[in-house]
């Protein structure tokens, strides 16, 4: 579904991301994992259209995506849930959700989707008319995800979903993401914790220093030493590309 190749993104003269190759197939959860500064968020922001790559291409559904503006990337079917929830605190829960439906072509379908989301996440229905700023951290994360869902994406980009959340909320969020996948959603997730990435993803890309160090299906990598070595940067022998 999504094919990234030879991606290079620079901040000024410094390359934050070099030669990244990444593929996401329909219906899977792929995780980019790595320490701080590895280039995971940079890659994600570039796919979303916020950053322009210095080199490389991004293709979505076999059509070029590179250089598309943020507003249009969303309309192509890729939605980003950025780091830190970023709900609109001064708008009500309902207004936060409605905002996401404005790009939908079929208004009636969007309205019924909104009601369905309210049913799926009762906490949102409860606080429908409350300013979103009054919700707790975990509730806000749910709102953020629900809001992104209403843009009817084909691919969801989620940047560090667990950031700043209590373990119980993290578990809930992971359950929601997995549930989404079982309903057919494709997800690309950025995670800083190796443990959480292994628990959530079907396939993993380990990034460090702006490059992919290691990639493979979670099941294969889970028990190996390779993955820790790739994450922490030890010398590896015979690592998979």
């Amino acid at each position, binding site marked *: 579904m999504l094919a990234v190749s030879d991606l290079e993104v620079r901040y000024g003269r410094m390359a934050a991301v070099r030669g990244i190759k990444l593929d996401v197939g329909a219906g899977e959860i792929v995780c980019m994992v790595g320490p701080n500064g590895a280039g995971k968020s940079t890659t994600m922001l570039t796919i979303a259209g916020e950053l322009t790559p210095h080199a490389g291409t991004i293709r979505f559904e076999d059509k070029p995506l590179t250089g598309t503006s943020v507003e249009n990337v969303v309309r192509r079917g890729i*939605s980003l849930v*950025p780091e830190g929830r*970023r709900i609109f605190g*001064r708008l009500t829960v309902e*207004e936060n959700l409605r905002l996401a439906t404005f790009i939908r072509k079929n208004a009636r379908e969007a309205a019924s989707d909104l009601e369905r989301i309210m049913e799926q996440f009762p906490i949102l229905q409860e606080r429908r008319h409350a300013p979103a700023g009054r919700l707790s951290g975990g509730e806000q994360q749910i709102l953020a995800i629900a809001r992104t869902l209403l843009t009817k994406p084909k691919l969801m980009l989620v940047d560090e979903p667990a950031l700043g959340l209590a373990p119980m909320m993290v578990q809930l969020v992971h359950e929601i993401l997995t549930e989404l996948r079982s309903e057919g959603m494709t997800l690309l997730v950025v995670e800083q914790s190796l443990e959480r990435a292994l628990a959530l993803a079907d396939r993993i890309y380990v990034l460090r220093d702006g490059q992919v160090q290691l990639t493979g299906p979670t099941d294969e990598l889970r028990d190996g030493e390779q993955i820790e070595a790739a994450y922490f940067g030890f010398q590896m022998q015979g690592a998979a590309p």
Partner: protein
Amino acid sequence: MTFFLQVVINAISIGSLYALAALGIGLLFGVMRLINFAHASYITIGAYTIIVPSTAALATLYIGNWHWALMTAAVCAIVIVLAVCTEFIVFRPLRHADPATLLVGSFALSFSLYYLLLLIHGGRPKAVDIGRGLIEHIAIGGLTIPRIDVVTIGITVTLLVALGLFLKKTRYGIEMRAASEDFRMARLLGVRANRVISIAFAISGLLAAAVSLLYLSRVGVLFPRMGIPLVIIAFVATVIGGMGSLFGAALGGFFVGAVSVVLQTILPLGLRAHRDAIVYILVIAILLWRPEGLIQVRAVKERV
């Protein structure tokens, strides 16, 4: 007692005028963190459109001669177009610049427009006679109130309600509120940046046109610096009202305007000339008491 009430109504009327001016500034500050000094130009140019361009000392009314409804519509349309054009030509290329650059850019624009106006119209004040009926007083319940006061308050209330409904109920209003709070996130949900900003400028232009006509009816004279005192006060008012809050901006403008009028009345004659200084001292006092402004907006405060 009657005198007191009349002063109160005058205070509310002037306060409303400044509230409208502050809203124009506050709107653009909320959406793009821009303090638009060119707002003074919008107001001044809006007023000058009613006469034929010439450097003659005696002004010839052109649009000013039309029926008041048509004249109002024409002035509003012209200022809205002006505002949107300035967005396209000056502010769009500067969109990602830092606040100081935006500020000086808006000032440079205002500077150019001011001198362009001087070039076309000359610097001498010109008396104009519009809205003659507004100077008359009308009797309401034993009070004689200038019609202009009633009209000012009426129009301000109408515009405030309309703006409030727009922001709360319409799609573009919700997009604008979201963009004011977190522009980046709004874009990530598909909100078109250019459209939201253009609409904000258009509304700002409309507000400027309203201020322009109301102020002109009150003073009856065109002069090139017309817009500047209004905008300085609007600027100050937006800050003491609380940046990022439209309601705060309106409140701030209203407060400064009303206090100015009250001081003018109650100050002993010797101090009256210093009225503005006293208002500014009060402004500093308010800032020291509530640095984030009267209406604190949580989104604008930095979280640590």
